[in-house]
């Protein structure tokens, strides 16, 4: 039996999402831009899905742009804004590469974080200039789970750079944070279906009414000319179905999963010495256990965990599958050697007590073995 503790990387699809997707693929294969009955049926599914996503994100349906995932949504938010308004982009040092790379590529500004993993708001205030046209600060970090003070960030941006739009990558947040409430201050919001029980390769960007974006993909003019290309109707239907369930059970899952996470982290720090938790637990989403083990290399630890059917991850892995040093932990001031022993156990809606007990049984001896022989 597999103990899947890697929900922050990708979640198992919810049965309702699988059903919605299959139904669409089998019966709803019309192109939503077409004129006949099957096409109109597909278009209706898009409309209904758009309503659900808009509701989950505190937006109006017209503000929702369907994309092929979180990375496309982030790129559209940053590059689409820069092309429409000129200027430069600014983001925090702990953003996902889907934000960080477009910002760096266009010569943007990076703002550091404190050792608590939260954006340095003083520095943010200092570096905001009239030149900045878009600020991107994620809602919850994908490695540490630390929720960023988006309201405070928005206040500073409005005060220091009122011309700038605020984008937030909420890809990790939807199951754990009330995105509709927390992101009211944001002009642009990215999400990705496979982080909350939907399929991979589907996501959305909210762009508030009045925000103009230059499209990255041109063609048939879908998504109100902001993103051309036939919509992934089956994937979008599945995303909406997953989002509806996720939002409906969020409060209960935050309590349930939060307790499991605490049991896991407290269990590990109680059984082992030389364990450092990144940042403060109360700043984190309920599902993330992110620890650094002194004298251990992540790659080796993950290998031993996998052997015992525990699926987890460390920092970001590159396209080859190799582990790369974490830019998030580096930004928080972790030494390279301590960061090299990081482990992210990310829980989710399907995590059980069994999974936690298995992890607590496997991880301590694996860490001890690596410390003795590594």
């Amino acid at each position, binding site marked *: 039996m597999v103990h899947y503790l890697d929900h922050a990387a990708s979640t198992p699809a919810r049965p309702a999402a699988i059903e919605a997707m299959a139904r669409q693929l089998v019966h709803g294969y019309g192109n939503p831009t077409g004129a006949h009955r099957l096409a109109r049926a597909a278009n209706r599914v898009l409309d209904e899905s758009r309503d659900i996503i808009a509701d989950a994100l505190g937006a109006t349906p017209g503000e929702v742009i369907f994309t092929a995932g979180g990375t496309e949504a982030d790129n559209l938010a940053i590059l689409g804004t820069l092309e429409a308004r000129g200027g430069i982009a600014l983001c925090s040092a702990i953003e996902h590469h889907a934000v960080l790379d477009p910002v760096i590529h266009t010569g943007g500004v990076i703002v550091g974080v404190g050792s608590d993993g939260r954006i340095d708001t003083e520095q943010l205030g200092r570096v905001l200039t009239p030149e900045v046209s878009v600020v991107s600060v994620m809602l919850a970090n994908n490695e540490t789970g630390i929720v960023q003070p988006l309201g405070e960030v928005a206040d500073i941006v409005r005060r220091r750079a009122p011309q700038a739009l605020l984008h937030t990558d909420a890809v990790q947040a939807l199951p754990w944070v009330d995105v509709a409430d927390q992101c009211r201050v944001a002009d642009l919001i990215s999400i990705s279906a496979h982080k909350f029980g939907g399929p991979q390769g589907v996501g959305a960007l909210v762009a508030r009414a009045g925000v103009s974006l230059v499209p990255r993909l041109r063609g048939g003019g879908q998504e109100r000319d902001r993103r051309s290309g036939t919509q992934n109707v089956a994937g979008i239907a599945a995303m909406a179905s997953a989002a509806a369930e996720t939002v409906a059970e969020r409060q209960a899952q935050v309590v349930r999963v939060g307790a499991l996470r605490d049991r896991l982290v407290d269990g590990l720090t109680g059984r082992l010495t030389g364990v450092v938790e990144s940042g403060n637990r109360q700043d984190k989403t309920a599902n993330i256990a992110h620890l650094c083990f002194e004298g251990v*290399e992540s*790659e*080796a630890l993950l*290998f*031993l965990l996998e*052997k015992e059917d525990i699926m987890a991850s460390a920092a970001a892995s*590159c*396209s*080859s*599958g*190799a*582990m*790369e*040093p974490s830019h998030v932990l580096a930004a928080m001031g972790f030494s*390279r050697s301590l960061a090299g022993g990081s482990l992210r156990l990310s829980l989710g809606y399907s995590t059980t007590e069994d999974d936690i007990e298995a992890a607590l049984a496997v991880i301590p001896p694996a860490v001890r*073995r*690596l410390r003795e*022989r*590594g």
Partner: protein
Amino acid sequence: MKPDVLVAMSGGVDSSVAAALLLDAGYAVTGVTLKLWGGESDSGCCAVSDVEDARRVAHRLGIDHHVFNFGQEFNEHVIDPYVAAYDAGRTPNPCIECNRHIKFDKLLRRADALGFELLATGHHAAVTVLPDGSTRISRGADVAKDQSYVLYMLDQAVQARLLLPLGSMTKDRVRQLAHELGLVTAAKPDSQDVCFIHSDGGRRAFLGDRIPLTPATIVDRAGNALGRTETVQLVTIGQRKGLGLAGNDDRNYVVDIDRRAGVVTVGPESETFVASTELIDVGWTAPVAEGRYSVQCSAHGSCLPATVAGTTITWDEPHRRVASGQAVVFYDGSHVVGGAIAA
């Protein structure tokens, strides 16, 4: 049940077939590809496409495949010393340092920690067990592809945990097996050069980004200027080609390099010969030491008789000067017994 083996798979044909042979022999095989270099690269074991090839071969064989990132160790033990060696006027062999510090140290320790009793590679060489129970690294059956030279540093403890399945096989046979098994790497060309050097810019671009490359005047023994090189750091003792001089003139061998003064002196071939060679870091990997051996000073160079005593090799016949930094390997017949670095 045979023991668990970790096979280092570079994404080339040799290590692909090595994995297949071990599987066939009944071992529990897991493949690993090392990510060593983050920069531009187009050959050897460092490119993402090579990782993909290794993964595809592993899938085809039905074995697990992992990627370990040893980039930091590679920088520390291979790249930095490589650059420093050129900066100091030596001619390093980075593959040997990679074997010494990465494949047969870091990876072997990792294998141990993960519960693998044995490590295997696709080198063309063999581990031979002698009647007294000790082992030797021996030349591969394919003389032209023999890689025992780059494994000279492996001691008894490492050899005891090492499998070299290609030792008795020719390269042609390896390729034939790869074809028969339908491996994507079957027709892949052999890697030619240093894996982290991109073919576009070569050594010059790589080193030029990291250390100042300086010019030198090329003179003959009488001091007459014959030409000029822009990169004295890339000139090696004994070199004749690539200096812009008549390549077939037997007075145009590099016999002296004074980098500080910016002078490269060329002379007749006879001046490139020496009676003895001084060594550093002498190591014996078999319980023997000092005496007469065949000595090889480059990967596919000639192997000539000499007496090794202390840190000096005395050649039976005058020998071409060995560039400082090159590995010097002692053979007893086809068995490696030790080696060193030319001073």
